[in-house]
Each structure stands twice: as C-alpha cells, then as structure tokens.
C-alpha cells in the first residue's frame, strides 16, 4: 500500500533531495540483486568524493568504499580499484600496466 505523504517538497532543492532519496532506495535494491557496474567517479588511490548518504553501514564513507561491502559479495569485484568511465586517464591501460609500480605515470588534472 502506498503510504500517504505528509511532507511535500516545495522548491527545486527540496525536490532534488526527494529524488535523491528515491534514487538511493533503488540503489539499495540494485545492490541486493546481481552486482552492477561501479558508479560515480573514482580513481585508484583517491577513493572518490561521493559519500554514502544512506543510513546503512558504512555511513558517511565514500561511495566506492560503501559499494565494496556489497559489491564484493557477488562476483568478487573490487569496485574502488576500477577506474570507471568518468576517469580522466584515458590511456590508463598503457600508462599503468602494474599499478603498484606504474601509478606515478598517472597524470591527473
């Protein structure tokens, strides 16, 4: 049954917050199903700027780290270690063959 809402978002900021809450609920569902690709911007050593706004553990951690907790349960992905589509290191695979050795080659803006 749809709960009756007692609070209505009025301005654009309030609506954005409301959408965020709805979106986050979906993310939680997604994470309990098959593992999804990492979202957001992250690099190898900078674990990202998005914090986990959900009340679930680990509260306030950056999102990639938060995703590690559930992401690793599926096919043992380690999301925070994977530069995703938003990384600005376009030739990552050429510059950084072995992370531990070659990370200094990475030149971020």
């Amino acid at each position, binding site marked *: 049954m749809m709960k009756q809402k*007692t*609070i209505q978002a*009025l301005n654009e900021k*309030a609506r954005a917050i409301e959408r965020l*809450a709805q979106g986050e609920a979906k993310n939680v569902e997604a994470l309990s199903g098959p593992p999804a690709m990492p979202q957001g911007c992250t690099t190898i050593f900078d674990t990202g700027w998005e914090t986990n706004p959900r009340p*679930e553990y680990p509260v*306030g951690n950056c999102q990639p780290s938060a995703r590690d907790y559930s992401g690793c349960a599926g096919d043992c992905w380690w999301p925070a270690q994977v530069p995703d589509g938003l990384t600005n290191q376009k030739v990552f695979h050429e510059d950084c063959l072995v992370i531990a050795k070659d990370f200094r080659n990475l030149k971020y803006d």
Partner: protein
Amino acid sequence: MQAYTWADHRLFPTQEGALLFGVDHASLFALDSRARDTLGRWRSADPLALEDVPEEARGVLEELRDAQVLVPLVPHRRPRPAAVPELDPAGVPLETLVLEVAQTCNLRCSYCYAHGGTYGGTPRLLDPETARRAARTLLERSGDRRGVTLVLFGGEPLLNFPAVRAAVEEAEAAASAAGKELTLSLTTNGTLFTPEILAFLRDHRVLVSVSIDGPPELHDRNRPYSGGGGTYGDVTAGLAALAQWGIPAAARVTLAPRQWDRIPEVFDHLLGLGVREVGIAPASPVTPELLPTADQEEDLLRGFRTLAERFETEARQGRCLPFANLLDLLGRLHAGRAKGAPCGAGYGYLALDADGRYFLCHRLAGEEDFAAGDLETGPDLEKLRSALRAAAAPRRELCAHCWARRLCAGGCHYENHLRENLLGRAPGDSCRFIRPWLELGLRLYARLRAEPENPVMQRIARRQEC
C-alpha cells in the same frame, strides 16, 4: 542500529501545518498538521533510533529522513562548522566587470556613497583606451564562463560616452571572437540622453537602469543637480525618450529612512511612468543620519510587505507585478541556491575604477582596504582573499546560529563596512530587516507554489536562470 540526529532546520507555522526550511541546503518543504505535530514531539529526541519510534510516527520521521532533516549520526565524523564556509577566489573566472567609466557626476544626490561620483578622489574619467583594455581583460579572464557581463557605471557614465562606446565595441568584438554571450548594462541618472547615445544603447542592446526615486518633490529632494535645482523633469523626459526609442528601462529607487513609509506610493508612481521593473534600495548609511531607527525599519518592512501582498493578488490573476526585489528573492528561493558568499564580489565580480585599479565591488571602489591590484598586473588574489576574510570575520559566529545563513551569507560587504567600521555598530545590524524579509519571501513562495501552472511561477523559475 542506526542513530539519527536533527539537521539544522527552521519551522514556520502555517494554517495547514508548517513550512520546513532546511538551513544548510536551502530546501523548503510543506508539512501537513500530522507531520508538524510528529516533528514537534520528536524534535527533542537526539540522537534518535527509528526502531524505537512507534509505528504511527515512524512514517513521518522516515519522510523527514528522506528530506535530510533527520540525518545519520556519525560518532567519529568531525562535525561540520555551521558558519558559511570560506571560499577561495583563486581560479574563479571573471564573469562581471563593473567599469567606473566616469568618477564624476552632474547630480549631488543626498545619499550618494560615492561622494558626488568621485569615490573620494578628484573627478576623473576613464580613458577610452583603458576602457578597451578592460573589456578585453574581462573576456580574457572569463575562463569557461559561457556568458560575461560588462556594467557601465559611475558617477554618471554618460559623462564619458567615448569610454562607454569604446568598452562596448571592444567587449562585443572580443565576445564574438571567443563565442561568448555578452550582457551589457548601464546605470544612469537619465538626464544626459542624446539621439546619438539613445541610438547606440538601442543598437547594442544595452540594459538600462535609470535612477529615479518617485514623485517630483521626493525625487528632487534626493537627486538635485550639482548646481542645485530638481532633476525630476529631465529624468522623466529621459524615460520618455528611452520609451520612444524602444529601449526598455528599469527604475532603480533609493530611499532615505524617513521616506520608507512611502514605498507603495513610490512604486505606483514609477509604474505609472512605464518602466519595465522597479527595484527599491534603502539608502546605505553613509552618514549617521541615514542610520534608520527601529520604527523606520518597521516602515521599510511594512512597505515591502504591502507590495508583496499586491504581488500575490496580481499573481492569482496570472499577472506579474514587476517588483524586482521580490522577483529576485522568489527566484533564489525557488532554486534553493545555498550561498557560499553573500555576493559575487571577488568571486568572478570585480570593479575597475577610472585609474584602472581593481576593487572588490563597485560600491567599495576607492576604499583602500578593498583595493585588489590593477589592470596592469591583474587582480591581486592575496588582497582579494584578505579583504573577503576580513569582511566575513565579524559575522562568523552570528551567522553560525542563524537559520538564514545560506540565503544571506552575511549581507552586503559595503553596508557592513559602513555600519561596523565607520559607524561603530555591532555586527548583524541589518539582520533585523533581512530575516523577516526572507521569511516573507518563503511564505509567499510556498503559497504561490500551490499553483505550479501559474505563469508568474514560471517567470520566477526562469528568473533564477538569468
């Protein structure tokens, strides 16, 4: 078990329930009576575990959590300082440059903060070559900004039309070469239009603001010629000429505290003159006599409230009352834009005086504490930083406890400078007016929001994009 804490918020009771304003996000929600009562009962519980809350209240509290009014309590996280965060002007591209085209004026307005247009120095004009260079600099320093604004200001800018022309033509050429949008605006006393000037303003789509303060006796008392004698007749003739040439003009009103009880009358008079929009500014206290009494502040609020009520009545009919102060406020509330600084001064907004020196803003031109480099060497970042820091410091503590801090962020630097540094008033002197005005806007916005299809609402939404 997750514990929650209450984020800073403010409740404004209404007939249906309450308005809830999220202080740090500048978010606005309407609560029905059930939500209001539930919030009232649980507000003192901090920290709060949702599991401990009875079923009937939990739904409301979950909604408040989704609204980020109730937020997860993180024991080891450093609490965020409540005050408005300090921004760094470094790397902020230049977006608006105010050119003090003429630091002289043919009027002697009673409340002038620029000492007859000179900003405290000898009367002087910006030479056209410097004006051109300034215009190019604006574009060169505009980084990734899609649009830039050049403001032609004074003194009376039309006392130096050659520099106006030079700056406009150069800015247009540079903007067109860079593929950027250019906005041109000019603030004038409206007494010096010639057919040549009018044709230029029209052809270059310059947005014109004319300073005019209301009915003849009031206007003439505020804005006489330097040699004496009223200017009302000439200014209204100037407005008529603008209309004849098809140049839309906005009226910019400045009123001394003793005139604040005449706000609705002034507004009506100016609308009657056919201006596009009317913005009303209380005169800055450049002398102690211009510091308002509590009663006069009440007059100001009452006047603005009366205009807000009329705005609402008109809006219900789908018409927009062109009261610029309110339109600006509603636009900002609509977006819920949380401010990190009270204005753009130093953050992409700078003034350049007739000698080619940068200042934090046009009103602070000539104030050595707010000088920041020159056209030759570029804006001085260290000076900008220290000026902004010094301007923010006295209010840091005060703002940290204020619900309106992300809407106001401390108020006008110049106004604060006058009140605190020159007149020795305590910080927060303007808060008595600013807070009720913001509350008035919030309540009006919430009522207008009930009719989202209203064309006035759409205009408000568009305004904040400008």
